[in-house]
Each structure stands twice: as structure tokens, then as C-alpha cells.
């Protein structure tokens, strides 16, 4: 009874959607920003439907599979202007030019009523890395330091950039479908606390499609990172209407520009230019990864989001694979 009441209420609320942006996915997401019946989520764990918008690269397939399996049940995937993966059974596809709102609403309702079965996992239900520990709990025999439980090393100490304290560094890969990053960009970051020690580009951002709305969409992403979702939505709607009128004044009133500290003056200049519908010139000589080293998480996300696609393509090309990895591959091939 209670469950039915919850389902009844859920049917009447906005459909929670996580949008995985492919090529031009940003502009497609902006089309959904105007629709109150759809609520675009920042985490896949808050969504019921994964919406793959725009064509994606072959290199992004594993990330897409991981993303799908993190969706909570009951769940579904919609392919909007994208080719479904082979694993997707009974795939819901929508042409890039069509508007997906009606389909998304119907799908959400069917999922909640149990008329459509929740999608099974696309990846096998096993740990992402194999068990390689020595002890009962995979501790590796070196106490808290070292060991490789589940095939992943424990965080080890490294020099801290700010005050040279030896503390643990952790390496993660973010993207290519993280909404706060430009679509397609995937970075490998070594973090100590919230400070980026080292960065590497895994996959570059999708190339610019040359749309006139790009600066406003970029401004929307930055405003979202600044914690101004309503203003971000307004920027997205302005992008769809190709008019940046009043947007800069509204951002000034909200204090969006003042919220950026002096060390992010370049980001402030780019945000101001983007809100005007233009692009601030960037010398583009220093690599993105060098610009990120030593930055705090939030500032780094803002700086990444502030680059226009042309500059990003110039300063953040895909990194050469590590020499060790190359050696490993050669050995594998020789074997």
C-alpha cells in the first residue's frame, strides 16, 4: 500500500534523468533544461533513466557500461541520437532532431508501475579488480601501508605541494560523462585531500561543432559549478534562444563574478566573455595538466569548464600512454 502510494507520488514528480553527453550533447541537454517535467541530475545515483545524448566514441564504451550499472533499479536507458551498445536489450532510441520528453515520461511511468522490467547489469557482477591480497582480508601483509586488496593498491604517501607534509595520495579517473566537465573530457587525477598533485588527459573533449550557443552553454556549466543552478538554467535557455540579453547583469547581481577569487582572474574573464556570448582570448601555451597541478578541486573544475573547445583541443590533447604501459603491451604481444 505504502509502496503504491510512493509510486503514485513518484509518477507525478519530475522524471530524474542523468544525461551522458556525447558530441553536441550539451546543446541537447539545454533543450531539456526548459522542461519542468524532466529533472537533470548531477549524479547517476539520483536518476532513474540514463539518457545518452549524441554520438559517442568507441573509447567511451567501457565508461558508458560502468555508468549504466551504477543506475539504481528500476532503471532504463534511452539513446537519443546515439547508437545503442550491443548489450542494450529492447533499446529505446530517439532521433537527434526529435524531442524525447514524452518518451522519457512514459518510460518513467512504466518503470514505476512495473510494466517495464528494470534493465539488468551490462558488466559481470564481479569486483572490478581481482582479489590479490595475502591475508584473510586482502591486507597484503604490510599493515595499513601497501598491499593490493582487490588488485588496487592502497593509497601511499607522497609529498604535499602546499606544506610538504607526507600524506596519502589517491589516483582516480573522472569523466568522460561527468556533467561538470566538458563532454568527452576524461582526466586521471592524483589527489591529496582536495589538492590536485598531478593530472593526465585520458580522453580529450569532443571537438567543437561550431554552434553559436557554445559560450552560453559553457557559462551554464561554470554557473552550475559555482552553485547557481537557476542562473545556469537561464543560461541554457538563453543558449537555445540565441540571445545573451540580460544574462551578464543577472550574473553580476547574483555575485557570480565576485565569487571567483583573484587567483581565478582568468576564469572570471572567460565567464564574463561567455556570458556576453563571446570567447576570451587565451594564449594557450601552457598544457591544461600543468595549469591544474596544485589547484584545489573546486577551482580546478571551474578552470577546466571555462576553456572553449578550440583552446581545450589545443592544450588538452590525449596524453601519450606511459612508457611502462607500452612496455607491458609489448611484452603481452611478445608472449
Amino acid at each position, binding site marked *: 500500500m505504502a509502496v503504491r502510494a510512493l509510486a503514485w507520488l513518484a509518477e507525478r514528480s519530475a522524471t530524474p534523468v542523468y544525461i551522458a553527453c556525447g558530441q553536441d550533447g550539451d546543446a541537447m541537454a539545454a533543450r531539456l533544461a526548459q522542461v519542468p517535467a524532466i529533472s537533470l541530475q548531477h549524479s*547517476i545515483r539520483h536518476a532513474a533513466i540514463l539518457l545518452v545524448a549524441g554520438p559517442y566514441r568507441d573509447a567511451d564504451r567501457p565508461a558508458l557500461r560502468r555508468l549504466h550499472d551504477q543506475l539504481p533499479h528500476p532503471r532504463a536507458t534511452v539513446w537519443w541520437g546515439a547508437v545503442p551498445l550491443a548489450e542494450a536489450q529492447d533499446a529505446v532510441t530517439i532521433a537527434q532532431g526529435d524531442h524525447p520528453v514524452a518518451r522519457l515520461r512514459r518510460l518513467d511511468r512504466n518503470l514505476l508501475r512495473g510494466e517495464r522490467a528494470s534493465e539488468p547489469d551490462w*558488466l559481470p557482477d564481479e569486483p572490478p579488480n581481482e582479489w590479490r591480497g595475502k591475508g584473510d582480508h586482502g591486507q597484503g601483509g604490510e599493515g595499513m601501508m601497501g598491499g593490493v586488496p582487490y588488485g*588496487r593498491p592502497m593509497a601511499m604517501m607522497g609529498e*604535499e605541494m602546499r606544506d610538504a607534509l607526507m600524506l596519502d595520495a589517491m589516483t582516480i579517473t*573522472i*569523466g568522460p560523462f561527468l556533467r561538470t566537465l566538458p563532454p568527452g573530457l576524461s582526466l586521471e587525477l592524483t589527489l591529496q585531500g582536495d589538492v590536485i598533485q598531478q593530472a593526465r588527459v585520458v580522453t580529450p573533449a569532443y571537438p567543437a561543432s561550431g554552434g553559436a550557443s557554445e559560450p552560453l552553454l559553457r557559462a551554464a556549466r561554470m554557473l552550475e559549478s559555482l552553485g547557481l543552478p537557476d542562473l545556469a538554467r537561464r543560461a541554457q535557455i538563453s543558449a537555445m534562444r540565441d540571445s545573451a540579453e540580460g544574462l551578464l547583469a543577472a550574473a553580476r547581481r547574483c555575485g557570480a563574478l565576485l565569487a571567483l577569487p583573484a587567483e581565478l582572474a582568468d576564469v572570471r574573464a572567460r565567464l564574463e566573455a561567455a556570458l556576453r556570448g563571446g570567447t576570451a582570448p587565451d594564449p594557450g601555451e601552457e598544457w591544461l595538466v600543468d595549469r591544474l597541478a596544485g589547484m584545489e578541486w573546486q577551482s580546478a573544475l571551474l578552470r577546466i569548464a571555462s576553456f572553449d573547445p578550440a583552446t581545450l583541443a589545443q592544450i588538452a590533447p590525449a596524453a601519450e600512454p606511459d612508457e611502462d604501459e607500452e612496455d607491458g603491451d609489448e611484452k603481452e604481444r611478445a608472449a
Partner: protein
Amino acid sequence: MGALANLILAMAVGAALLLPMLWWPMQLGGASGQSQQVPFLGGGSQSAHAWQRFHIRYYPMTLLFIAFEMEMMFMYPWAVVYVETGIKALAEMGMFLSILGVGIVYAWREGVFRWQ
């Protein structure tokens, strides 16, 4: 007898509330698979365990706060006896505060109050 009946009633109500909470996750089926336990990184994955130590940067400031909070605790009983003890109590508290003041000056010089 009345107490026992109340206890049994309370346990029954507790079980009625708790059992559905235990039963509910089981109904979701597959919700606790390996893929669902991985942190959300926008399609990325982590290459080291998240169990790690990092520096709490507000730590020296917290220590300082606790020290001065304790000082305030000493001042309450002092305020009670101040009137009858008179100038001697004032001198003693003056000495106590000046020693702590030296601590503040030292901490200031070390940059404890600079927010990092």
C-alpha cells in the same frame, strides 16, 4: 504484569517497524551488486583504495579554540569568588591571561590564523 505487557507491546511495535526496513532492500534485487558499490566518477574508475589519511587543516585552530574555551571555564568559578577575594584575584587572573596571550602571539606568528 503490566510492565511485561508494555515491554512485549514495545518490542512488537519495534519489530513491525524494523522488519520491513530489513525486508525492503532484499526486494530491490541486485541493488547491491559490485557495480553499484563503485563510487560515481562520471564513468571513470579509481585506481587506488579510498582508505587514506589526509591533513585536517583546521587542526591547529581547533586546538587553540579548545584551549581558550577551557580558559573561559576557569573564569566562571573565578567570577564567583572575585568579590570576596578582591585585588588578589584580579592579579592572578591577569597573570593567567597574559601567559595565554603570549600563546596567541606565538600562534599568530606561526600563521595559525591564516585559513588554508
